[in-house]
């Protein structure tokens, strides 16, 4: 068969396709996003972006009940959003096979926390599988659908950043032709009222016992005997790091089905080795269970809980070896915190809000998180998707209770995040009449994860045209008064400044909508190709006002301010802030 190189995410998509999966629904989130993007490209499947993970999970649940093989994917924190249907779908079971991918982010490359979603499996009482490279992503996905239908359970398919975004060779197979199973009304299975849920819970416990027995015989869990002085129980990417460091100088129990755990296999393996190590990233998920079985082993005593693992860490922790570092230098590379891109339409409103020192800014998850960065320094608080408006409301309520009226609360949220879980927060500000300012930064796309369509884009994941949700009308329908809404072009600084001032002075729930598509959208790049800002060095007084916009296309080197033409897209912000009219826009 043909060997190709694939990322874990591409291989998961391929595995779902080969397994005959019919339907997929997801919300983008690093490191999971590319799974749906790739799945959608295959013939004969349906794939959609949903407004959030709960909706995606429920669409997939319904599709599974309807008899289709279904997939939903999300980043680790997305599963928190979808936890409600997860726990009850665990009772209902499936009709068509149902796989839920949770993509965790040890090391927090692009996340707000380092939660270990393996704990969701025992908590929700569903089976869990964990691949360790791209080939396993494909193979385990096919196996997951078989387990799902055989045992009438959804499968938690747990991957991590280094599995999702590492590439390795994959042998492809053919798509299995799977018919959508017939749907039959079965209220005892699919209506979870107490009278049905009580017997269901007993069934769930019986199912887990059957799965435990299966876990002890499935090839997903395997023993690889080498030197028996060191025994290692591991799963996921940690298996690859372990093999790299110990090779044949250790024996391995490689766990691919990590809930329920293969308890008999673990006991058997433990008797065959002298010292048993449990190697896993983040929490002691395996270790706690194995120690509770009364088995002597070493884990988090020497393997760190925080941050991702790598071969260096294992080598040092277990062998006490440190690699020789031959070269060092006193050249100090400058720090490179992520910043808003050149020409980013979010910059304009943050620039103006940054002028006010009496604002508390409640931020959200997306590119505009970077409103916190130097030199804008606007944002005060960021927690999770959709929290900007609701947390801002709470801050304002605290201000009111404490009779503090020296700070105005602004919330900042992007279009996609507003659709995700900001709308309910806005309704709450109106319902309870909390006078905060909500800034909806509408760039028509889900930006940070790399340009996924959303309900405001006008197009679906599969490329079909769809109605664009009109955010202004939506805000009006939520009950914000028409006189308290401003719609501005954030590239027009005067207009934006005026809106910010009026919002700052308002005494009722107020909304600013900034409308300008992401500067990196292909059509935008094309339309603006050749448009640049340039500095007339004779007029430039080196006052550096333009640098305060924080645009990375601007440079100040050897006493000269200039604009990198390969980065500039002519948004014109620097031109508008220049007090000496030294900046010109060319190429229009």
């Amino acid at each position, binding site marked *: 068969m043909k*060997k*190709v*190189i694939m990322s874990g995410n591409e291989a998961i998509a391929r595995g779902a396709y080969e397994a005959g999966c019919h339907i997929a629904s997801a919300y983008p989130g*690093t490191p999971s*996003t590319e799974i749906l993007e790739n799945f959608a490209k295959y013939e004969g499947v349906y794939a959609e972006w949903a407004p959030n993970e709960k909706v995606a999970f429920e669409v997939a649940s319904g599709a599974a009940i309807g008899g289709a093989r279904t997939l939903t994917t999300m980043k680790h924190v997305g599963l928190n959003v979808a936890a409600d249907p997860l726990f009850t779908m665990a009772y209902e079971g499936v009709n068509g096979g149902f796989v839920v991918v949770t993509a965790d982010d040890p090391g927090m*490359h*692009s996340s707000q926390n380092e939660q270990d979603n393996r704990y969701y499996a025992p908590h929700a009482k569903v089976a869990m599988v964990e691949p360790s490279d791209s080939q396993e992503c494909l193979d385990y996905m096919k196996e997951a659908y078989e387990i799902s239908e055989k045992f009438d359970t959804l499968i938690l398919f747990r991957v991590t*950043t*280094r599995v999702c*975004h*590492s*590439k*390795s*060779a994959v042998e492809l197979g053919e798509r299995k032709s799977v018919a959508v199973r017939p749907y039959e009304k079965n209220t005892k299975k699919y209506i979870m009222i107490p009278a049905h849920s009580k017997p269901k819970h007993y069934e769930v416990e019986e199912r887990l016992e059957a799965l435990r027995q299966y876990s002890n015989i499935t090839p997903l869990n395997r023993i690889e005997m080498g030197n028996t002085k060191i025994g290692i129980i591991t799963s996921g*990417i940690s298996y*690859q*790091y372990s*093999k*790299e460091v110990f090779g044949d100088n250790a024996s391995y129990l490689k766990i691919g089905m990590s809930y329920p755990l293969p308890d008999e296999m673990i006991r058997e393996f433990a008797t065959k080795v002298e010292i048993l190590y449990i190697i896993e990233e983040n929490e002691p998920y395996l270790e706690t269970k194995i120690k509770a079985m009364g088995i002597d082993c070493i884990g988090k005593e020497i393997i760190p809980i925080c941050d991702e693992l*790598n*071969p*260096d860490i294992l*080598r040092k922790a277990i062998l006490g070896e440190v*690699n*020789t*570092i*031959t*070269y*060092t*230098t*006193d*050249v*100090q*590379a*400058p*720090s*490179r*915190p*992520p*910043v*808003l*891109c050149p020409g980013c339409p979010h910059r304009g409103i943050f620039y103006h809000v940054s002028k006010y020192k009496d604002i508390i800014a409640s931020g959200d998850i997306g*590119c505009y*998180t*970077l409103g916190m*960065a*130097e*030199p804008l320094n606007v944002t005060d608080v960021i927690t999770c998707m959709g929290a900007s408006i609701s947390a801002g409301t709470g801050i304002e309520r605290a201000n009111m209770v404490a009779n503090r009226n020296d700070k105005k609360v602004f919330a900042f949220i992007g279009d996609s995040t507003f659709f995700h879980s900001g709308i309910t927060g806005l309704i709450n500000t109106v319902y309870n009449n909390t006078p905060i300012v909500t800034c909806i930064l509408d760039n028509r796309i889900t930006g*940070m*994860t*790399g340009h996924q369509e959303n309900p405001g884009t006008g197009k679906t994941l599969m490329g079909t045209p769809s109605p664009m949700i009109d955010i202004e009308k939506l805000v009006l329908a939520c009950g914000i008064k028409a006189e308290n809404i401003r719609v501005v072009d954030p590239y027009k600084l005067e207009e934006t400044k005026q809106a910010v001032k009026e919002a700052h002075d308002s005494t009722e729930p107020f909304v600013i909508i900034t409308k300008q598509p992401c500067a990196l959208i292909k059509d935008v790049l094309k339309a603006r190709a050749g448009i640049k800002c340039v500095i007339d060095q004779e007029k430039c007084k080196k006052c550096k006002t333009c*640098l*305060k916009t*924080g645009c*990375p296309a*601007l*440079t*100040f*080197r050897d006493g000269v301010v200039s604009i990198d033409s*390969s980065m500039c897209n002519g948004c014109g912000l620097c031109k508008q802030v220049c007090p000496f009219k030294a900046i010109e826009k060319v190429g229009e």
Partner: protein
Amino acid sequence: MLDSKSVLFVGVGGQGTILASKILTEGLLKSGYDVKMSEVHGMAQRGGSVTTQVRFGEKVYSPLIEKGKVDVIVSFEKSEAARYLSYLKKDGYIVVNDYEIHPVPVLIGKEKYPENVNERLTDVAHNIVVINAAEIAGNLGNIKAQNVVLLGALIKVLKLESINWEAVISSIVPPKAIEINKRAFKAGNDSKVE
């Protein structure tokens, strides 16, 4: 086959490290090597420091490279090589793009961009290839092709010229960009490596 080799691409988000490593991994796979590559998406892409790691050999397990074990560091931005120098193994090579990108902390005067980077790196690591990939690519018609110029130089350092890289490039980049990327590769591959 030899022991596995490791290449570390370092640069600034948006410089095209991912495409360069993609061409490399495709070519290696087609030539029968086991290959693993690891990259990071998301937040770091927004002007942050980015790395892509490629490992190849008869059998590769970890996609992540250990410190002191990198055969070649390809630095898309001058100062980034310094940040990752501890990964270079004894007698390993550095291919460095003679190109500076000043991050915001430097622009607003909170930090200083280091001086004489190339000279100071050459003082400690003797196998260093400095190449003005941005200028070469710019002369060819698109500064963005600097990534493939650097790839050309890397292939020379790795002595992997027997692989048909032009065919690999043609299978990966969009049709419009094939010609310039082939020329960029050749320009990089023609650079002087000692």
